[in-house]
């Protein structure tokens, strides 16, 4: 290929990435107006300022029993381990750009990787900047901080973050799924060990330990059969990321629907078989399966688990009740996604009334919402006292619990299903 053709390809790939990045932002950003109008901005701001006040109080005087060592290890590990990669790949790329694979690696993916490393390093530095005052002032870690110069730790964590992002790229290149999962699990375990060692052990020991871990990872990355450029994997990841964005935005405003790749979920999908064998329940059967194998259920059950964990460690009856109520609001919003489920065209040719769709969606949402109320409602009394300090009086208040549960029953059992079942326009059918 001539030099001019090379230059043209390079310019094309640079501009392609820039255009796609800009197009994504242009598509997403306008929706944020609606997100903020919905009150979410206020809610997020309230949480941010609450956390900020709590943080300021904490760094003024870190309690002796505050687990600074482990909080630091967990938070910094979580930041250093993340290895996202935005490529903005599209399904047709593996057809139309395949011939330029080498150029794609040099001019497109390398740029994406560089940007991911820069973003990751900045993220970890920000997290470390927040943790450093605690590290220095906490009675548990003050002595360690004296022999761990913050600037050295910052550089080491930044390097570890960069290596993890590169590791994430190598994992994506592995041809076999089992290798991808295995490599990721090993990287997470070893990198967390390295972060913990750097933070809590003498640097003279921790640095060689971390270097040995990096060497082991580098060796492991060479083992599996690899794609030069994992087209399908990157296309899938982009589609999933896009769906997550749209899924989040769709809580607040109508956005173009994305077809999510379903998850099998054998452990829960069997519930659909409990639907009575009746023609009037055909839509119910379809909605149950679509819901249980879809992203809405994935988001819902993760949210319920997080809520239960927060409730378990809060140690306060009032916080439990507030978290219970707020979490149920979010569950309801997530379940309202069922109204937006669209089916393949052949569904319209079957002999069941399309008007039954909304009723079935509402019934499924009601069932799932009430299950969420029951689970979180059970977690509140079951975990009362777990996160409390000695001497804390009110670890469980029945009246608070009853108010939150009553609100949950109304929200998920009546208001939200009613909203789903309401016919607004032809698009609902």
């Amino acid at each position, binding site marked *: 290929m001539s030099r001019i053709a090379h230059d043209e390809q390079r310019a094309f790939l640079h501009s392609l990435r820039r255009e796609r990045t800009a197009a994504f932002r242009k598509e997403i950003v306008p929706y944020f107006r609606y997100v903020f109008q919905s009150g979410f901005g206020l809610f997020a701001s309230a949480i941010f300022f609450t956390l900020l006040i709590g943080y300021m109080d904490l760094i003024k005087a870190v309690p002796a029993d505050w687990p600074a060592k482990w909080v630091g290890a967990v938070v910094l590990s979580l930041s250093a381990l993340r290895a996202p990669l935005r490529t903005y790949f599209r399904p047709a790329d593996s057809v139309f750009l395949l011939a330029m694979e080498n150029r794609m690696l040099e001019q497109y993916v390398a740029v994406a990787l560089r940007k991911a490393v820069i973003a990751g390093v900045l993220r970890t530095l920000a997290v470390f900047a927040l943790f450093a005052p605690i590290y220095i002032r906490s009675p548990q870690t003050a002595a360690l901080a004296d022999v761990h110069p913050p600037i050295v730790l910052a550089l080491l964590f930044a390097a570890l973050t960069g290596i993890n992002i590169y590791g994430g790229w190598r994992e994506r290149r592995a041809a076999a799924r089992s290798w991808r999962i295995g490599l990721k699990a090993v990287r997470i375990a070893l990198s967390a060990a390295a972060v913990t060692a750097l933070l809590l052990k003498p640097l003279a020991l921790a640095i060689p330990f971390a270097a040995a871990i990096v060497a082991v990872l580098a060796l492991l990355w060479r083992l599996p059969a690899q794609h030069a450029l994992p087209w399908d994997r990157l296309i899938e990841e982009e589609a999933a990321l896009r769906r997550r964005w749209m899924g989040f935005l769709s809580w607040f405003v109508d956005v173009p629907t994305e*077809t*999510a*790749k*379903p998850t*099998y979920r054998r452990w829960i999908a069997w519930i*659909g078989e409990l639907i009575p*064998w*009746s*023609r009037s*329940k*055909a839509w119910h*059967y*379809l909605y149950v*399966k*679509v819901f*249980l*194998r*879809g992203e809405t259920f994935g988001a819902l059950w993760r949210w319920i688990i997080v809520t239960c964990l927060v409730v378990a460690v809060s140690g306060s009856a009032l916080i439990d009740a507030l978290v219970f109520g707020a979490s149920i609001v979010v569950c309801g919003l997530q379940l309202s996604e069922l109204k937006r489920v669209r*089916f*393949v*065209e*052949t*569904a*319209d*040719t*079957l*002999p*069941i009334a399309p008007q039954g769709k909304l009723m079935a969606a509402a019934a499924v949402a009601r069932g799932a919402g009430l299950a969420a109320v029951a689970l979180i409602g059970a977690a509140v009394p079951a975990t009362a006292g777990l996160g409390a300090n000695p001497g804390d009086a009110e670890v469980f208040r029945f009246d608070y619990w009853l108010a939150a549960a009553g609100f949950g029953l109304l929200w998920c059992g009546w208001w939200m299903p009613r909203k789903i079942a309401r016919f607004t326009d032809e698009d609902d059918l």
Partner: protein
Amino acid sequence: MVVSAQEKTSAPALAMKELTGGYSRRRPVLHGVSMTLHGGELLGLIGLNGAGKSTAIKHILGLMVAHSGEVRVAGATLEENRELYRSSIAYVPEQPSLFPNLTVKEHLHWTALAYGLNREAAEKRADELATTFRMTEAMKALPDTLSKGMKQKVMLMNALLVRPALLIIDEPFLGLDPLAIRGLVAALDEARDEGTAILLSSHILPALERKANRLVVLHKGRLIAEGTPKEVKAAAGCTGTEATLDDAFEALVEAAEGGRKGE
């Protein structure tokens, strides 16, 4: 209520009368097309790409509204008796159109629910179809793990599960392996013997020549020939023993093109 092939009705399974239709009223795709299909018959729908075959099928399915003329399925128009109309048809589109969140078995389960089939009979029939199409091991798979041919088999299994009065199949042989084609042909023969009327749109003319009772040839939205394969060949002037339906179709299209140019 499902109107199955076994239920005797005096009305034809499909009666399309002078149908003019398409997305735009100003530029209709179909121009006064008529066709009739009785129980136990296989009607082959032939035409070049863009001839109006898929549009005709969409009108029959009630996914498009006719500009003029009417379509009756089991004696009723969609407006007269939506329930009877819909439950009389099973449809297999050219491109497999499956629910991504349902396994193969769950697709059959849902179709059986939607058509109000008896549970035991539907499950027995589903097992038979799985064997016929060699899909027994794929019954618990989600569509995204299936090949295009396997997806097409799922569509066919769903349609054949119902034993409808009218079975509409668009390009059934695309993507199927040789054994699946053989299984499909046998299943279509069986369905026809049971009284199902089959409308089959395909470009594989030798297969239609062997299997179809009658043919309808569309060209640019107009019906240019109709009858048994022998009658269609005769209409095209292909009367020799060596003449094939491919030859006849080519002659008909050329004649129609010539006629159009001469208009």
